[in-house]
Structure formats: C-alpha cells, structure tokens
C-alpha cells in the first residue's frame, strides 16, 4: 500500500527511472552461492590464532595468574596477560563525553589487576591453530579474590553503595540534564506540573538486550613491515582506523582497516572492540598475522549490550486531555566501562521523549550508572526506542486516567500536518509528515473496527482469551547528523559523509562510499541513484566500500544515516561529474556549455536532439586526453562530502492486535499493521525488508529478549539456548504500508528506514497486551511479556516481573509506586 502526498510537498527532483524501482539486489549473487568474504574466511601465511581466557567472576582482584603451563602446550606461540600490555594498551576510546565532568574510569582491553564484569579478558593464548589456542587456555592457573558485585542501578546510586571502580567517588558516571525552560524551547516544567489537573507517573523498565548479529565478531591483522591491515566484522572501518591508531600508537597512515562482507550489526558492531586492539598489539609484537574469531557465547557475554534503563516518567495534562508537561528521569546502565558511545545513547534519546506531541514544557535528567556487567552501547535505535516506549506507554496510561480513547488523546496533542516544519519542546525541527494520514491508513490496514467489535464480544462473554489493540504513533530522528549539532552535544566526530565517483575508460562507473553496509543493500541502492544521476545503466555501476585504502574518508553506518547522508553525498559527487563532463562535451561538440542539455546520460545541443555525446564516451575521451579544453584537469572523476543541515524525522502509526490467554499468560500477535512515512523511497523491496527486520527486533524486545545476570553477576543468557532470538514460528506476518512526505533537507527526499520498525513496534505490542487485560486490573507488565509474567500480572497483581533474585539486573527489588520520580531522588 502506498499513499503519495500532494505534489506541493515533494522535492523538485522527483524519482526518475531507477530510483523508486524494485531492483533485486546486486549483493545477493555472492551471498546465495557461498562466495562470501567473511573475516573468518581469511587465511594468511603464517597466521596465528588468539584464544582469550575470560573472567568467570563479575568483580574481583586477580591474586594469582600463572601462564607457564599454557606456554608449554603444543603449538603455542605466546601467552600474554594484562601485565604484558599495561603500558601500551591505552583505553578503549569513548567518543561521547556527554557532560564536561563525566567520569570515565578507563577501559583496558585486557584486565591488569582487577576484573569488572564476567567475560573480561584476563589472558590470551596465541597458537598455530585455533584448537591449540583453545586447548592451552585450559592450562592457565588463575585465582580471584571477590569484591562486592554492583548490579542494581537503584541500589548502586544510593549513598554508601559498593563501588564498581574503587578509584571513583560513586557509581554515577554523569548527570545529564536537558531542561526546555532553560534551553528556551519550552516553559517551566515544575510550574506546568503544579498547575496541571492530572499527573500520571510511571516507572518503566527497559530491559537489557543483546544485538545478536548472526556473524560472530572476527578480526584478522596482517603485517607488512610497519604497515598493518586490520580486517574486522565491523560497521565502522573508518572510525575504527582513527581510534585504533590513537589507542595503539600505530600511525594512522600505517593502518588500513577493511570491513569485508559483514553479517549484520544492528549497532552491535559499532564499536572499537578490546579484541581488535589486542589483535593489533599482538601482531605488532610477534610480527605475524593474527586471527581472533569469537564463539557465540563469547559474543553474548562480551560484545556490548543495548538498552537497560529504568525510566521514571511523569506526564501532566488538563481534564480535557491537553498535555501540559513531561518530566523524565533515567537511570541508564553503562555496564562496567564506557565504550565508544555508551554514555551518549540515553542522551540521544533525551530529545525524543516528547514524541509527536506538542508539550509546552519538558525536563529530562539522566544518570549514567556503572555496574559489573558488560558495557551497553548502540543497539538498533539507540536511545530512541527507549524514548518512544516511554512516551507511547504513558500516553496510554494518561488516556486511562482521563477515560479517553487512546487514539483520541494522541490526536488531540499531536502536531498537525499543516504545522510542519515544527520546532519541538526539545528544540528539534521536525521536517515533514502527516500523522493523521498514516493513522487512517494503518487503522484500515489493521481492520480496526472489526477487531474492536471482537474485543467487546470477548470481554462480554468472559472469554479466557482476551483481545487487545495497541497503538504506537511515533517519530524518530534519523540521518545522523549535522556536524555542528553533534559538536554542541560534545560528540567526538562530525556527521558528514563522503562519496567519490570514478569514471573508468570503458564508461563503467565506480562509486566509492564512506558508508559501510552490513546487509542494508548499499550496492544496489547507490547503483540506482548513480544510474539516474549519470544516465548510465544500473549494471555499469560498481559500489566500493569498507576499505580505508579505497574509501579514505567516511563515517560509516548507524543511525539510519546511510541513504540520507551517504546517498546525498553520492548525488553531490554525481553532480560534479556531470559538471566536469559538460566542459568536455562543450569542447568536443563545439558548443557553448550553456547550450547543452544533459539527459539520459547524453549531452546534446538544445534543439538538436539525437546528436550528442554520452557521458560514458566522454570518460574514454578524457582518459585518452588527446583533445580537451585548456586550463582544466584531464578527469571527470569527482568527490563530495555532504554535511546535513537537519536530521530527518520518519514517522508512522503502528497497530498491534494481541490475544492474551488469561489462563496460561500466553500472548499471541493476532495482527500487526503499520504505515510508515520514510520520505521518498529508492528501492521499495529493500525498504520493506528493513521494516520487517526492525519490527522483528522491536516485537522481540516486547515478547522474548532479555539479558539476565544472576545475583553474582553471571550472565545466565549466554547462549542461544537461553537468549531467545526469535525463530520464524515466534513472529507474525507483518502488514506494512507507506505514506510519502519527502524530506525537505536532502535532494533524495529520503528520511531513513533502518531503525523505524524497531523503534515503533515495542510499545504497540505492550500496549496491546495491556489493552487486553486492563479490565482485569493490570496496568503494566514487565518486558519481555513471558507467559509467566503475564500470568502473574493477571493473577497476582504488579507487573509480573518481581520474582527476580535480589540485586540482579532484572530490578526486582523494592518497587517505586506513587511517583517514581520523587522516590528515586
């Protein structure tokens, strides 16, 4: 289903032939035949293999570490401990000091004398084979003296709580505040609450999740003299190169980073991993190529996690349902250390809590809290799913308090189509959209009225299987990001993207992009863009990426930025190629540049269609360079960097119909329908695939996934037996659709789609379950909605999640009730 908005909102550059067409993906050819280049496939002459001994305890001093027996094992090349690298390993970098006084305790790649989470590296065996390395790890002798374990954020932030890092004063890394009143983007929040008719306060738990990309992380380092090549299953080869150079002291120009085929990331490979640094240090020390590939349990235990917030949220409104103020206080679990953007993830969410609503006042506070767990960092949506969950959940709670229809409450408060661009209370300028239109389309797609009738009937008949409908009317900020905005938020880099276009002598085209795909289909989409821009055949375009020697400048892939920022850079580079080719064409056609028109890949003199010169012919002519104008360079190649002027703001309405078996607590999605506005669409099948994948992960947060640590800090969900990544049987069919309001701030009119489904869907699912059982006295159910939790919430009250071991990260301790906001202080 597609609804196209009136042309007045479309960009002048309407989609041409390739852009907008459902091209099948180029990259599939190798992926469906097994001819792939995963990092772990790589074998180099003389390569040695790393295996890591990892801490089995969450918080301890290493009192004894003897690796001599391991060194004597067959085929072992070397064994290293933290003592070997303490003077050269530096700290895993954190690029986002969200406040000037943020405490960063430092993050060694390998523990030196204390361990701060289960899975932290303690020793490394390097051997001639993978198996020899794994075997020798068993021979390492190590003793630990335990230190009290810090797991529960609400306990960890109390005075006198045991510390994660003995050299810090508290477990709080930072206190970040955004106050709309102080920022001048809204009124006084406390005054708004004091004057409100109604205040609703809730405490929501955003459980810890694991990105669980399918390809385990893998690193290979090649050595050639003092030059190093680092292959890694990473989303960020460019950022990794800079950061690894700064961390190890290997000069940046002596370090090449390659991300070959990468099997998914979802933010989980947006990291400078300890093992990447260690592989470089070991390759430098040994002068040999080194490989490390993690097992799945290593991945779940030591690759960064996502989410993990306790959210105290208060909303103020008048009796008629007009919202008056929003107050949010977060405890955000950093884990034991700050990795690349650990502290920034909740801060990024700060600007999205007001959602699509016209709040006159807003205050946000967040404490980043250290615990003895693996660090958190980006996971699909990164801050925005958490914010969207909280606002969409509490809008339902407010509707209940006011006895209003939840959609009516939303409609009363959302930004109307004619009000775009709209500056929100958080200071963002929402670009375009029509929430009513997407909502109407979604209601139709779901079959809303029929399902409401069935819900009524089931309720009246006392059916043990109750039906609920959940709503999420969301927006998100994509296209990260205007560099100046990132600078104002103290982020360590810009948000531009780079592209270059090489016109080869035979007329074929190489497009080099700084955005690095790991499943998103850049090769296909970028080819479509360039085919239109240059008027060349789709199959004549090759897209190169992920190798810093080929793509020297780039800022990689995250935050739904690739098309919006990277795609725009491709457009800008194409425009430069055409401009350069125009000069050659004018010369060869003996015409004035002004008299030439460029269409379908061909320059021709206005008024004489037919005759002319193709841009691919010009590529050959300028390669020969026998005849070109004086004073210009013999090349039509071009590159461009694009720095966006604004974020883009996709939006949509997601509706979930959920059956809840009140006897067993089992929940089943009956129907899921969503209509998203992601601006102009370059490739509809890729877009639909991105939506499906995002929905799967968002729904899975609501229903299935949770990284659980026991009271001693052991990850009890450390394998795919225990951490539930949903199978085909666990997920429903998705009914998806689009409305189209072009993004006004980039020439493609694109807004971004990679994270939308993941951000929007979670609250729709939870709201649906609550809608089914609210008449039974249930007002919250802790995610994920396991049958046990749902059953307990129905039959025992509370949110069903209070069974967790005391002190564990499932936050099962004392439950704040009346005003979580007050009590948490």
């Amino acid at each position, binding site marked *: 289903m597609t609804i196209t908005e009136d042309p007045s909102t479309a960009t002048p550059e309407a989609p041409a032939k390739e852009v907008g067409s459902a091209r*099948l*993906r180029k*990259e*599939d*050819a*190798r*992926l*469906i*035949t*097994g*001819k*792939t280049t*995963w990092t*772990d*496939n790589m074998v180099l002459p003389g390569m040695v293999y790393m295996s890591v001994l990892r801490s089995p305890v969450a918080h301890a001093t290493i009192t004894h570490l003897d690796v001599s027996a391991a060194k004597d094992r067959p085929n072992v090349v070397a064994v290293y401990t933290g003592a070997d690298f303490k003077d050269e390993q530096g700290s895993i970098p954190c690029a986002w000091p969200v406040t000037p006084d943020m405490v960063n305790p430092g993050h060694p790649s390998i523990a030196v004398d204390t361990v701060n989470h289960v899975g932290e590296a303690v020793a490394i065996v390097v051997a001639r084979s*993978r*198996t020899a390395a794994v075997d020798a790890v068993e021979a390492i002798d190590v003793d630990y003296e335990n230190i009290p374990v810090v797991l529960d954020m609400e306990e960890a932030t109390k005075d006198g709580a045991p510390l994660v890092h003995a050299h810090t004063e508290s477990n709080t890394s930072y206190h970040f505040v955004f106050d709309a009143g102080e920022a001048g983007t809204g009124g006084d929040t406390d005054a708004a609450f004091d004057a409100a008719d109604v205040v609703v306060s809730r405490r929501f738990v955003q459980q810890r999740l694991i990105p*669980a*990309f*399918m*390809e*385990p992380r893998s690193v290979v380092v090649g050595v050639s003299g003092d030059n190093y090549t680092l292959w890694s299953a990473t989303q960020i080869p460019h950022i990794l190169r800079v950061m690894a150079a700064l961390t190890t002291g290997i000069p940046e120009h002596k370090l090449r980073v390659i991300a070959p*085929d*990468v*099997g*998914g990331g*979802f933010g989980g490979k947006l990291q400078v991993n300890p093992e990447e640094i260690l592989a470089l240090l070991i390759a430098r020390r040994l002068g040999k190529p080194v490989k490390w590939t993690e*097992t*799945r*349990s290593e991945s779940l235990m030591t690759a960064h996690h996502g989410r993990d917030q306790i959210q105290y949220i208060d909303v103020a409104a008048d009796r008629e349902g007009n919202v008056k103020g929003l107050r949010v206080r977060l405890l955000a679990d950093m884990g034991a250390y700050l990795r690349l953007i650990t502290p920034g993830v909740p801060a990024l969410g700060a600007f999205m809590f007001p959602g699509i609503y016209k709040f006159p006042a807003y205050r946000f506070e967040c404490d980043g809290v250290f615990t003895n767990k693996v660090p958190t960092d980006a996971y699909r949506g990164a801050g925005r799913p958490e914010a969207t969950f909280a606002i969409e959940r509490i809008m339902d709670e407010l509707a209940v308090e006011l006895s209003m229809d939840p959609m009516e409450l939303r409609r009363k408060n959302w930004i109307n189509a004619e009000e775009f661009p709209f500056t929100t209370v958080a200071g963002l300028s929402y670009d375009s959209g029509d929430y009513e239109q997407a909502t109407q389309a979604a209601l139709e797609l779901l079959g809303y009225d029929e399902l409401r009738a069935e819900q009524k009937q089931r309720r009246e008949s006392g059916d043990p299987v109750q039906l609920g409908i959940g709503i999420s009317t969301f927006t998100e900020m994509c296209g990260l990001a205007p560099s100046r905005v990132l600078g104002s938020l103290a982020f360590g880099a810009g948000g531009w993207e780079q592209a270059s276009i090489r016109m080869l002598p035979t007329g074929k085209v190489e497009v080099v992009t700084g955005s690095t795909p*790991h*499943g*998103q*289909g850049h090769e296909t989409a970028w080819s479509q863009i360039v085919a239109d821009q240059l008027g060349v055949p789709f199959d004549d375009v090759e897209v190169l990426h992920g190798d810093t020697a080929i793509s020297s400048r780039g800022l990689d892939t995250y935050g739904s930025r690739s098309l919006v920022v990277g795609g725009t850079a491709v457009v800008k580079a194409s425009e430069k190629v055409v401009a350069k080719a125009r000069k050659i064409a004018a010369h060869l056609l003996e015409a004035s540049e002004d008299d030439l028109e460029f269409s379908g890949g061909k320059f021709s003199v206005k008024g004489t269609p037919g005759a002319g010169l193709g841009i691919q012919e010009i590529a050959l002519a300028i390669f020969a360079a026998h005849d070109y104008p004086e004073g210009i360079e013999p090349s039509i190649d071009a590159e461009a960097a694009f720095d966006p002027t604004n974020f883009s703001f996709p939006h949509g309405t997601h509706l979930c119909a959920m059956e809840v078996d009140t006897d067993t607590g089992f929940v089943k999605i009956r129907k899921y329908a969503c209509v998203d506005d992601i601006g102009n669409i370059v490739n509809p*099948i*890729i877009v*639909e*695939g*991105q939506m*499906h*994948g*995002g*929905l*799967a*992960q968002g729904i899975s947060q609501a229903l299935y996934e949770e990284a659980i640590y026991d009271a001693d800090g052991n990850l009890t969900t450390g*394998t*795919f*037996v225990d951490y539930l*990544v949903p*199978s*085909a*049987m666990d*997920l429903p*069919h*998705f009914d998806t659709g689009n409305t189209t309001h072009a993004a006004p701030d980039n020439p493609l009119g694109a807004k971004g789609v990679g994270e939308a489904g993941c951000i929007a869907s979670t609250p729709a699912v939870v709201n649906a379950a609550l809608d089914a059982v609210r008449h039974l006295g249930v007002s919250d159910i802790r995610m994920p909605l396991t049958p046990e939790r749902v059953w307990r919430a129905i039959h025992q009250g509370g949110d069903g999640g209070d069974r967790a071991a005391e002190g564990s990260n499932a936050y099962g301790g004392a439950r704040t009730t009346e005003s979580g906001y007050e009590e948490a202080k």
Partner: protein
Amino acid sequence: MTQINVRVDGASYSDDVEPRTLLVHYLREQLGKVGTVVGCDTSNCGACTVHLDGESVKSCTVLAVQADGAEVTTIEGIADGATLHPMQKAFHEQHGLQCGYCTPGMIMASIDLVKNNPNPTEHEIREGIEGNLCRCTGYQNIVKAVQQAAGEMSSTGTHAVETTGAQA
C-alpha cells in the same frame, strides 16, 4: 588422526582429521568450503546447515569422521553451473536475505523442507525453518521465497537431482 573419505559438492577428498573435528570446521578449514559458516556453539542457529547423504544436518553437530563415506552438499554445490538452484533464485527474487550470514544454512534447510513437503503452507514453512535463525529479515520474505521455490521445484523435479551436486 583418523582418515576419512568424503565427497563434497561432487568432488572426492581423502583426509586425516582429529577425531574431535566438527564437520563444519573440516569443511571450512581443511577444504576451504567457507560458504558454510558457524553462527553459534549450541546448534541453535542453523547457519552451518548442509546436506549429508541428502538429509539436512547442522554441520556443527556432526563430527567429520561421521561423514566418512558420505556425500556432503553445501551451499557451494547446489547451483548447476551458472544456473542457480530454484531456492537460491527464490531467496534473491523475494529478498529473502539481507546480511546473508544465515542464508547458506537457511537455503539448505529450506531445500530439505520442500523435499519432504513439496507444498508447504506458511505455517509449515515457519515450523520447518524453526531451527534456522535470521536476525535481519523477520522471516516474512524467507517464507515467500520458500513458497516460490516449492512451486518451481515441484514443476521441475529439482529435488531428485539435488544431492548429486555440481563439480567442486
């Protein structure tokens, strides 16, 4: 070391392996058949799925020595020269893959599914690929791909010749 004789994707191999070697590691590390990948260590994800004498197996759950005397078919052996297997073609045409890491196993499992059930319903497909995890697609387009391939395979009789494989 134990000697094994095995045919993989139509070629014969005779190798010494450690008895503990998993079939997937033998394929990847000794034969260079890196199209088959490892996704977990608990036989949950199915990324390593191959066919052993025509039956779908998770090659992380089979020892290389158990393949002695057997015929193994991997993702690299199902196309007929330049002509894709209908299941490969369908995954491409229905956009049944994104990052592609689960794809070799998913395709091999799906071929076996259709061999055993030539006309599967959506529910039967979802149940049949339950042992193969995909983190990218949400499975909807994989289901469509299996439906398309099932139609083509039953009209062309593809499953009858599948285990002979192509030359390596």
